[in-house]
């Protein structure tokens, strides 16, 4: 019989509250990756409507001109910017760049990999994404 391993499960995996900003960034990276994937699929569906002629294409394009369409596009802008900027940090980090140097650890054992550079980069990804969203909103809802 397989023993119950008391795994935390999806709820524990997705809970970003307990382990600092790095875990929040992990969560945002997943959500934005999945969101972008969903957008890409929707985008291919939307643009493929051109195969059915100009009137179908035009009516599809109308969907993006609604308030809901604007809100979704603004979210896509934010997801795209955060995912890209944080993605660059992660690609470097995964290669061992910017994760700190091994030392002789001493109390209180602050982990070097959770350093200020990484934290600032995460906050910057969120900040730049917010700015891009505000710019997007002003363009989409402006005039």
């Amino acid at each position: 019989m397989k023993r119950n391993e008391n795994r935390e499960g999806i709820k524990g995996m997705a809970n970003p509250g307990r382990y600092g900003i790095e875990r929040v960034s992990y969560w945002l990276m997943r959500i934005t990756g999945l969101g972008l994937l969903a957008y890409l699929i929707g985008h291919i569906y939307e643009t493929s409507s051109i195969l059915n002629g100009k009137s179908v294409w035009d009516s599809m394009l109308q969907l993006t001109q609604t308030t809901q369409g604007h809100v979704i596009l603004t979210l896509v802008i934010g997801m795209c910017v955060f995912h890209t900027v944080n993605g660059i940090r992660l690609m470097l980090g995964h290669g061992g760049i910017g994760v700190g140097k091994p030392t002789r650890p001493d109390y209180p054992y602050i982990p070097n990999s959770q350093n200020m550079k990484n934290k600032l980069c995460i906050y910057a990804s969120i900040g730049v994404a917010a700015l891009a969203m505000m710019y997007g909103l002003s363009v989409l809802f402006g005039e």
Partner: protein
Amino acid sequence: MANTQIAEEQSSSEVSSKTVTLKIAKFNPEHDSGTQFVDFKVQYERWTTVLDAILDVKEHLDHSVAVRYSCRQASCGSCGMKINGRPRLACFTKISELDSDVITVEPMNNYPIVRDLVVDLEGMFDTHKKMKPFIINEDSEITNTKEFLQTPEQIEEYIQFANCIKCGLCNSACPTMATDSSFLGPQALTQAYRYVADNRDKGKNERLKIIDESHGIWRCHFAGSCSQVCPKGVDPAMGIQLLRGYLLGFRK
């Protein structure tokens, strides 16, 4: 005559400045259907650890509470448990530092529960052994008459990772471990790096082959929770990224 009086045993009846509610998760997989939390009022001082409080309960209020410990000084790695939602060593966590009137203690996640606060770490020891946690070198010290000498700089490359006490807190905090029961986990991956980074070791390619699999190092997303909970400053997240640097071609 010098004052040789033995300090009186600290009991829960002794007057103390503060009390706290200790909520202990009780569960015996052999006959219970679910976890039950039992509340105990315990008195504590500034220096009282969560383990002290649990042992106080065991001695005076409920003998049946199952808890595992040995060294009481963050060296043996047996007392890991979830304290107020985060994996910690009970002997290394003071009640006063938790800043809460209620202390909830539960068994660590991602391990089978033996009973109450005790979890089965066997799975972690298995993945640890998979990493070949020993120096691989043909010119062993037995055939050679000379010992291996290392400079302080060479020791610094790995000594941080050699601090691991196999308490398993990192595997319990890891978001990948939360859903993937085949993942090697931060503890094992970091030990692979501990030996790869040791200049006496020649087993790098062997170990890289072991971790380069679908439930191996690629499941790490650098969420860093392992490093946030490690009580010994091992910083598993750093070790894993440095190790992955070899596989991605960032390092040689």
